[in-house]
């Protein structure tokens, strides 16, 4: 996965209207900037929300909230930091969605280790996609959100640790320690699955 290379000019849409006095041109420039941001990053935002625990059913609505925030803050997004901004917003939206869901008593995703009694699973077993996705959710839902985010970016999206540090705005050492803890957690839970939860 590559970082966004496109510059979504924050000031440019506004500046476009200064000399000409043509407001619609400025408006169209803002729309173009938003559409470009949207086209380049919607899939990333949606997938990030899913990996942070938002259900498939709720991901559309939560992604919409992320882009509503982006539309309102379009002028503040620094060129080259579009993906970082959207990722930060996604983490906060996902955190809020998970909190709200728990307050409502909904089962956002299975958080109970007891539910991980998947029976005996062989290390070389190939699961169907749906079952594998459920198991992934079960394991990820027992992770701290920060560790979960780094784990998903590294193990699922394939980013390097340097890219992750840049994206989430923390030192590389912090990324390394979060990833280490997340991987240990993942392996511990997977090991329990393979033994069958007790």
């Amino acid at each position: 996965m590559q970082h966004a290379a496109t510059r979504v000019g924050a000031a440019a849409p506004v500046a476009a209207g200064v000399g000409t006095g043509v407001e619609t041109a400025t408006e169209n420039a803002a729309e173009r900037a938003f559409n470009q941001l949207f086209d380049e990053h919607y899939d990333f935002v949606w997938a990030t929300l899913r990996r942070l625990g938002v259900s498939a059913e709720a991901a559309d609505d939560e992604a919409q909230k992320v882009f509503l925030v982006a539309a309102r803050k379009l002028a503040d997004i620094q060129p080259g930091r579009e993906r970082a901004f959207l990722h930060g917003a996604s983490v906060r939206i996902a955190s809020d969605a998970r909190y709200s869901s728990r307050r409502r008593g909904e089962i956002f995703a299975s958080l109970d280790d007891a539910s991980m009694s998947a029976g005996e699973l062989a290390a070389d077993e190939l699961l169907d996609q749906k079952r594998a996705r459920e198991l992934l959710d079960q394991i990820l839902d027992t992770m701290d959100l920060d560790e979960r985010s780094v784990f998903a970016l590294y193990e699922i999206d394939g980013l390097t640790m340097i890219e992750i540090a840049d994206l989430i705005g923390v030192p590389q050492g912090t990324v390394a320690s979060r990833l280490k803890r997340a991987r240990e957690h993942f392996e511990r839970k997977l090991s329990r699955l393979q033994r069958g939860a007790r």
Partner: protein
Amino acid sequence: MTSPPRLVGRGGLTRSIIESAKGDQPSREGRERARAAGLAALGAGAATSAALLAGAAKATGKTTAIAVAKWALLAAIPVSVATTSYVVVQGTKSRSTSRALATAEPSLVASTASVASSSPVAELPSLAPEPGSTVAPAPQPVRRAASLEEQITELDAARHALARGDTSILDRYLASNPHGALREQALWLKIKSLEETGRHDQAKVRARELLSSYPRSPNAEAARRILER
């Protein structure tokens, strides 16, 4: 710093579980709905730009920035997401103009300091309705224009209520936000709700309204199909 080998390289069960996440795909409908909402909300971004430029103008004394800020703020008004309850007539700076600028400015000072580490949604309230809540369709005599956050909250609650067959929140939103930023979505929810409950004539009335007000809506094609039945 050395990067550990990716877990997916182990194959077998580990690979199946990790790669299962790659099957996640957003829906086309959800994507277009999000785009439409974002475009509708761009006016709020204009207000933000206005506040930023007004702040800069205050510091530098540049009149150009003030002029642009005024335009950007006015551009935000038609989509009903400005944080004001007063009417602004284009070309006239009312007290609401300075009020909106004053309220938007502080957040910008903070957000421009560090965009990556800022809290872009910190101001968003929780969007979840309380358990078992039902909102009576109480009359709303005089209501100020709802902020974007309030509209998001209300429409989110309306969706949850619709799942229980309760249309009161949605009806209230439509009645109270004739020019709301999320009205297109609300109209479409209403149309679907009417269709699902067999009230096809009323659904057609709302479909006509949607097509008339939002001819470029991502739901326009579906609305036309309803009218053709």
